[in-house]
């Protein structure tokens, strides 16, 4: 996961957080490389290695955040979903289907989904 993120051209740094328990990976992004201008863009990734792994890739910038998650939730049928909100509005949810299966596949898949989402903003 952390390796796949570090290799991505829009990721400038990725490290385990908090440094003691290392329960998530926090990455700093440079979306201007996609032609999208924003400051302080970050991606947080959590991964639970269950039989069917549960995970969340969550992007944040000033006044906007969105994420691709696969985890139990009361908002959509099934675990896989996309969510986003502007500022502190309520999240909007929609069910999705992931194409990749392993952590590196999912990392590249989500980064591409993010690129497209930011492209539409």
């Amino acid at each position, binding site marked *: *996961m952390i390796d796949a993120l570090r*290799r991505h051209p829009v990721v400038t740094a990725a490290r385990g957080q*908090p440094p003691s328990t290392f*329960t998530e990976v926090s990455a700093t992004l440079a979306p201007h490389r996609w032609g999208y201008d924003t400051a302080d863009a970050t991606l947080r990734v959590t991964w639970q*290695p269950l039989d069917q792994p549960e995970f969340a890739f969550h992007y944040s910038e000033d006044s906007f955040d969105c994420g691709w998650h696969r985890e139990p939730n009361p908002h959509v049928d099934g675990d896989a979903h996309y969510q986003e909100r502007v500022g502190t509005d309520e999240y909007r949810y929609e069910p999705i289907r992931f*194409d990749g299966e*392993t952590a*590196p596949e999912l990392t*590249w898949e989500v980064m591409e989904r993010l690129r497209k989402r930011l492209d539409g903003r």
Partner: protein
Amino acid sequence: MAVAHRILQAHAEAILEDILHRIVDLDEVVGRLALGVMYQRVGVLGESLNDDVADNGRRLLAGFGQRFDQAVRDLDRLSGTVRGFDGVGVGCNHTNWFARSRKSVWVPEPGDGETDTEQSVVSQLGIGDQFDNSAGRRNYHSSVRTGGMDESDWEATWQEHASAFDRVRSVVLAVPEPQPAEWIADHARVAESTARDHLDRLADMGVVTSHATDGGTAYGPDPAYVRFREIRELTTEYDSDALSEFVVDLKESIAELREAYDADTPADLRAAAAEPGVDAEEARAMARAAGDWEHYAYRLSLLEDAITRYDEYTASNVPA
């Protein structure tokens, strides 16, 4: 090796993997055409880059044997019947062709009669689904794989930025259970023979361990390698005082779980989750907590190792 050189080499290898992986998915004519064109490309790249790429390409292509011979025959046939075919082959932009779309052919700026040539090629190949005239190039695209372009975009980006070797390495390091080469090839988007080569190399390097199973050889991360990589990251990023503070944090996190679930070990917690009378949601929460616990215990063991041997791991000299 210069950076540009490495990038080009990785790119050339990635293109080869792509063809080898897809030739069976693509319709036969285009698959063989791609292979033939790529063989030319490898020859060119081989001269201007280094012999390894060319040798690797020839070796991989040789694995196709009969298939490649057929590709050459088809190329000869097409060359004889389609005027300007060589122009397509030589001018083929491999980035456009392989990285951005499933298959596309661009023909250099048309001169007299070129349009006819383009049409002949496209009609012979049956790939005229989409026409895109941009940046002075004519691209003929065709979505061959089911799922369309959207699904494949991330794969193309991945293949563009990570070599076949890197993709195999990242997939095999991510598997929770050892997997056969075929499975790893599928998830790394490389040919099975390529995956085997890279997995053997990774095993030689101590990155991967092979396991004999009923279904053949399976590959997974080498636990000692993974462990040491984590320790090295800790000793590179933090001094030993910081590492000692992390130990305190981790021990607290473990104590909290022990108390919350009244269990002595993660295994006890898993056993409790499987007891009759535990509802599904609760069992899932307990399994998650057991996973966290194992993760904390693992991180704790890494920290203890990093602290104990901090000076050795950060020394500038190593004994001969």
